[in-house]
């Protein structure tokens, strides 16, 4: 145990949950096949497993079954997949795919696929070398490489089925997200908003790798795939070519809105949902307007890419609030009837509940301390930015909460239909902004911003929050020393798993938040826990360690703790991380004895 960290908030501060939900598994998969075929577990992105062998009564007996190192020291943000009796893992750059044979003791490597990657463009790709996972469909494993290739590999043999390059590292594009495969199409998006990249989501034919459609996040309607069936709920999102007119002339061409987060799919409505990154690369005063369609969410037809609705979380974003987080699709009792909703823990600090057929905001409640905005108008859907918390060159702005990585970044939450709670790994960070530093890029000096991040109210930098989306409040919270940058996993055993950057892999009671079991890993955890049923019929829980990513760059990128403004100011908030963890890259698989 680590002092005050990992401890539940004082009783009374957050009321203990008396769930309104009957214990019926609403939204739960009908059949639990014990596999884990996509990082989010299911199209609804619940990250909930129906396996219950490991439960709150016996989880304290969880033991290490076997381990595996991928020999890679970059940040491990990915999720392993389990299909049949094989576990698959795609490493951080250079993005090697491993297949481990679960039928044999210790799960030896069955095959190992290495994609040819560009190392020549050294220094051209910007900062992140993470990969957030692969996806399985129709006998193939699909994943992205940092240098913009999408790869399909035969899941049985490791033979490459196809490999296509759909972006250009020389233009600042990279790919880090996990694909989603829907109706024979592999959906993938790009990263690199800070490099002047124009964001897109692309659908590739799963059989051939040919591009079926590409939807840009900025520009004319024809490029954004906005047509007659586009019916956004709010007036501010209606009109011709808003992806052009909500920018100064031409600024949309480098406007960002990259698609590096998560995609969900509702087979009933036949819609995919995904978020777009922040606008860039102009300083905000040079890009007046809403900067559509950045920092928002699209609903699209998966066959054609045609947009159905859009909602903008942070119009004219000035805080780097990418809008790419996961969209959890739930059917919730709201206002006396069951609504088909998206629950979304957004970077700007609000927990949104949206009607997923229309894009209407049903509620938006702060789940962290917020100073950067004053709320969301539920009539108009309008986000209310706080003008005094707007960074502007020549000014010093202190106490901007949440900070640039937001209340919650990409790290995915989980939902348990048994408790009705969302389990949200997130940050508790604020920042100061100061424009003073002389900086230098490509032979050109400029005045750089000095952004310093630090712990928000309470002095802890991370939280693990159980959120009740119906009662619109937290059921309980666990404070953590560092931002909780790992994913969450909820199971039918009423146990929730997550990892911390100071090397704890924890199992907590889904109802009370009590820590039931924990294991000290070799390196900090920013990966996504999964669970599966092995060929021996037992339930296993798996997690990769390997600290890194944006908050862990101080360790994985060997940044100096003196450079408080390095990694966009994140180093300032993480200068003690090297005292807690070194680099890593090991898979830990646990089971009951």
């Amino acid at each position, binding site marked *: 145990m680590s002092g005050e960290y990992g401890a539940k908030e004082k009783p009374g501060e957050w009321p203990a949950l008396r769930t309104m939900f009957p214990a019926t598994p609403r939204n739960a998969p009908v059949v639990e096949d014990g596999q884990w075929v996509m990082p989010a577990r299911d199209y609804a992105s619940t990250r909930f497993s129906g396996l219950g062998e490991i439960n709150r009564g016996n989880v304290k007996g969880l033991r290490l079954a076997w381990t595996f190192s991928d020999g890679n020291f970059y940040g491990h943000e990915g999720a392993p997949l389990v299909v049949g009796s094989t576990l698959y893992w795609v490493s951080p750059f250079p993005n090697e795919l491993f297949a481990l044979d679960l039928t044999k003791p210790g799960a030896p490597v069955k095959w190992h696929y290495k994609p040819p990657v560009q190392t020549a463009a050294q220094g051209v790709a910007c900062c992140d070398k993470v990969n957030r996972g692969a996806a399985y469909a129709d006998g193939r494993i699909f994943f992205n490489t940092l240098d913009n290739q999408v790869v399909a590999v035969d899941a049985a043999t490791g033979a490459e089925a196809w490999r296509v390059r759909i972006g250009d590292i020389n233009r600042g594009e990279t790919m880090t997200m996990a694909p989603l495969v829907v109706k024979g199409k592999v959906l993938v998006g790009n990263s690199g908003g*800070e490099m002047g990249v124009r964001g897109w989501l692309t659908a590739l034919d799963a059989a051939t790798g040919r591009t079926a459609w590409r939807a840009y996040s900025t520009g004319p309607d024809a490029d954004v795939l906005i047509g007659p069936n586009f019916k956004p709920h709010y007036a501010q999102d209606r009109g011709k070519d808003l992806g052009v007119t909500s920018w100064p002339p031409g600024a949309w061409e480098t406007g960002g809105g990259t698609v590096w987060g998560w995609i969900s799919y509702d087979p009933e409505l036949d819609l995919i949902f995904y978020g777009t990154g922040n606008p860039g690369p102009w300083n905000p005063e040079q890009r007046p307007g809403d900067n559509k369609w950045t920092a928002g969410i699209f609903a699209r037809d998966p066959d054609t890419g045609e947009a159905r609705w859009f909602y903008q979380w942070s119009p004219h974003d000035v805080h780097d609030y990418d809008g790419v987080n996961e969209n959890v699709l739930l059917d919730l009792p709201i206002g006396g009837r069951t609504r088909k909703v998206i629950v979304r823990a957004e970077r700007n600090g609000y927990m949104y509940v949206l009607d997923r057929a229309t894009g209407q905001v049903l509620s938006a409640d702060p789940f962290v301390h917020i100073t950067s905005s004053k709320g969301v108008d539920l009539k108009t859907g309008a986000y209310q930015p706080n003008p005094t918390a707007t960074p502007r060159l020549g000014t010093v702005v202190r106490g901007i909460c949440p900070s640039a990585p937001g209340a919650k970044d990409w790290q995915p939450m989980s939902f348990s239909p048994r408790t009705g709670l969302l389990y949200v790994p997130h940050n508790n960070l604020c920042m100061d902004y100061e424009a003073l530093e002389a900086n230098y890029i490509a032979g050109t000096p*400029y005045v750089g911003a000095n952004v310093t991040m630090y712990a928000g109210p309470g002095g802890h930098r991370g939280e693990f929050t159980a959120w009740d989306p119906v009662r619109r409040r937290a059921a309980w919270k666990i404070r953590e020393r560092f931002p909780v940058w790992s994913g969450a996993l909820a199971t039918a055993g009423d146990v929730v798993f997550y990892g911390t950057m100071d090397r704890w892999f924890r199992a907590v009671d889904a109802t009370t938040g009590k820590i039931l079991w924990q294991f000290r890993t070799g390196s900090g955890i920013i990966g996504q826990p999964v669970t599966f049923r092995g060929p021996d019929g037992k339930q296993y829980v798996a997690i990769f360690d390997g600290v890194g990513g944006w908050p862990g760059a101080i360790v994985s990128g060997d940044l100096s703790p003196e450079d408080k403004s390095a990694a966009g100011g994140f180093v300032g908030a993480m200068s003690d991380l090297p005292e807690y963890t070194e680099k890593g890259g090991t898979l830990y698989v646990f089971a009951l004895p």
Partner: protein
Amino acid sequence: MCSRFPEALTPRGTSGGEGPLRRLLLLLLLPLLAACAETQAKPSRELRVCADPNNLPFSNEKGEGFENRLAELVARDMGARVKYTWWAQRRGFIRNTLRAGECDLVMGVPSGFELALPTRPYYRSTYVFVYRRDAGFEVRSFDDPVLKRVKIGVHLVGDDYSNTPPAHALGTRGIIRNVRGYTLYGDYSKPNPPADILTALARKEIDVAVVWGPLAGYFAPRAGVPLEVVPVSPQIDLPFLPFVFDISMGVRREDVKLKEEVEAILARRRAEVEAILDEYGVPRAGRRAKP
């Protein structure tokens, strides 16, 4: 004189071309070189420099930039030879090169730079207005009314609130709709991506480019159309937005000895440094460049 031969063979640094003729020459000269080596030892010291392989007029892999020339100058004075580590000059350049111990010297950093230990400045340049000489207007200041009606190009750095100073200067004056941004990174598979903006000016896609002086001083005379290069004014926008920067060489923060050695060389070789900067047309603050 023996020591001149290797330089004559590869006059542009460590990775000159490898044509058949050159290989033949090398073969013919090898015995001669070997003989020379016996009488005059090759410099045993290495000056390890990190530089962008594709960013004229500063540096490139062929050694054609003024920073390549300055590296040769400093090395020669030290009795060393230059060994380059190439890395695109972007975010993380200093971290991945100088601070990672891949090299000991970078040729250009702002003198107020915090990530490295800067030498005393060896030049001061300024952002400049560049426009076609036949444009029918003149630009001297960010406050010139003409800037409200012509198409202006500026460089973009990134989205963390900061950009090149001209982008901010225009924004605070409400000059937004007629401004076009060119990312400094450009397309790195093409030569010298930051120079795109001057190509756009020559092609009349924009009417004025506001760029860092050395880029304009080098590329304006090569643009194919007569261009005017004029230092911006004011030199500082209040409260704090300078357009003029002192440029130093940079070493690791703890490398005080090397810093002092380089400073002494820069002082001793002042005239040669100035001559190289002149040759590349680097506008120095307070002086008007000759296009």
